[in-house]
């Protein structure tokens, strides 16, 4: 699996939002897109997801052009977007259902791995914000597509829950090694999670700089307090 973003531009009438964006996500890689709010990150996501056509450029998934093609990537939105009338189990298999093949056994296993055993038959309203985001992430993991787009998934959570969720995300991801493209405006989050960070400039968004984050995996929360981590944070902060 590999994703190639090739010279993507997008403008709405006179409003130039994206300008010649180029980057790639390799197989099993965790890449973060870091940029200020309103820098067109979500526009980029909806182009990759096939929701809108780029004004110029192409997107390739495994060398196949996917411009305007929906359903070729798995997606975890900012709000958990769980279906209120579905139980947790029915929610996590939704992506599979749309693609046509449901594996309930694997779904139950993942629910248990996520520490949500006993909630299979609960409805989303009975869960806390952090739990809902976990369900949402499992849903995207269980979807058959090989690339997962995460759109600021933890931005609505409080600080404590967020750190816990980041750790949890890493532990699950390190097991499954899916390719992830992660949008965030939180520098620490990006450094802690990613193999590579792509920094977008503001209006029109374009790739400003790329950093390869050298920290070993599995990563621990203690990393957040290390000298090296702070040096990286400073380096990236100065770039933005």
């Amino acid at each position: 699996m590999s994703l190639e973003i090739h010279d993507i531009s997008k403008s709405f009438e006179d409003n130039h939002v994206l300008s010649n964006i180029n980057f790639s996500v390799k197989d099993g890689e965790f890449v973060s897109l870091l940029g200020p709010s309103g820098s067109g990150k979500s526009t980029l996501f909806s182009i990759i997801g096939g929701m809108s056509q780029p004004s110029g450029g192409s997107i390739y998934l495994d060398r196949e052009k996917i411009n305007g093609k929906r359903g070729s990537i798995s997606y975890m939105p900012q709000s958990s977007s769980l279906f209120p009338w579905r139980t947790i189990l029915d929610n996590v298999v939704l992506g599979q259902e749309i693609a046509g093949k449901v594996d309930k056994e694997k779904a139950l296993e993942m629910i248990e791995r996520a520490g949500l055993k006993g909630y299979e038959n609960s409805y989303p309203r009975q869960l806390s914000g952090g739990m809902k985001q976990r369900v949402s992430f499992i849903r995207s993991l269980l979807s058959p597509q090989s690339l997962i787009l995460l759109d600021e998934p933890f931005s609505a959570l409080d600080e404590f829950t967020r750190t816990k969720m980041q750790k949890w995300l890493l532990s699950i991801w390190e097991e499954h090694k899916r390719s992830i493209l992660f949008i965030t405006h939180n520098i620490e989050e990006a450094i802690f999670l990613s193999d590579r960070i792509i920094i977008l400039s503001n209006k029109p968004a374009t790739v400003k700089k790329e950093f390869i984050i050298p920290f070993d995996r599995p990563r621990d929360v203690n990393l957040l307090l290390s000298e090296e981590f702070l040096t990286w944070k400073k380096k990236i902060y100065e770039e933005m």
Partner: protein
Amino acid sequence: MSTMAKKGWRPVLAIILFFILWEVGTRIFDMPSWLLPGPIQIFQEAWTSWSIYTEHLPSTIQLIVLGFLIGSGVGVFVAICLHLMPLLKDLFYPFIIISQNIPVIVLAPLLVIWFGFGMLPKLIVISLVCFFPITIALLDGFRQTDADLKHYIQMAGATKGQTFRKLEWPNALPSLFSGLKISATYSVMGAVISEWLGASKGIGVYMTLASSSYRTDRVFVAIIVIVALSLLFFLLITLIEKRVIKWKPEEGINPYES
């Protein structure tokens, strides 16, 4: 339900108070019973002539149920068609509104002229009053689909049919049930009105016979029966709603949302 039990005595008390005032009023002013009978006389009549009006009940209930089923079936069908084909919506939406502005009282005799005194014109009247609240409620439910959920399911590659079945339809179910509840009560009214036009049996017939022979107490008995039927029907729909829509929050059990 416990809140119902706790607060239910208030309207009951109000009704009892109202009946007492009514009874006392008719006695003080010495009302002739053809003009306004007191509640005691009405309940006595309801008790003694039980066998007379229960004979009329089955045909009315049959009309209500059939008319309601046809009307709501048409209502759901129309709503789905208009939703899935926006062009149809642009063409026909105004006519649906207009159909409700024609008074049933005017339309009903016309239907009798066209279709005779059988079941058909009666079912048309009931369906006509039933389908509208359902179509409108359902269309509203479809329209109010959560934008985030829609975005998600489209990103996931759902077809138009999948989006409808997995998202828009379940999302509109609560609206459908509010439409059904309104229609349930309308269908009882529709049945009675259609029976006024000409029928051999039915609560509507019982009512016309009673009023033309100045048996005002029997008119009130008919009113009680109609109200009871409406309430029963309403209750039935509410029970079905509770079984179908299980995901709706009940008060006070959600530990996370305030």
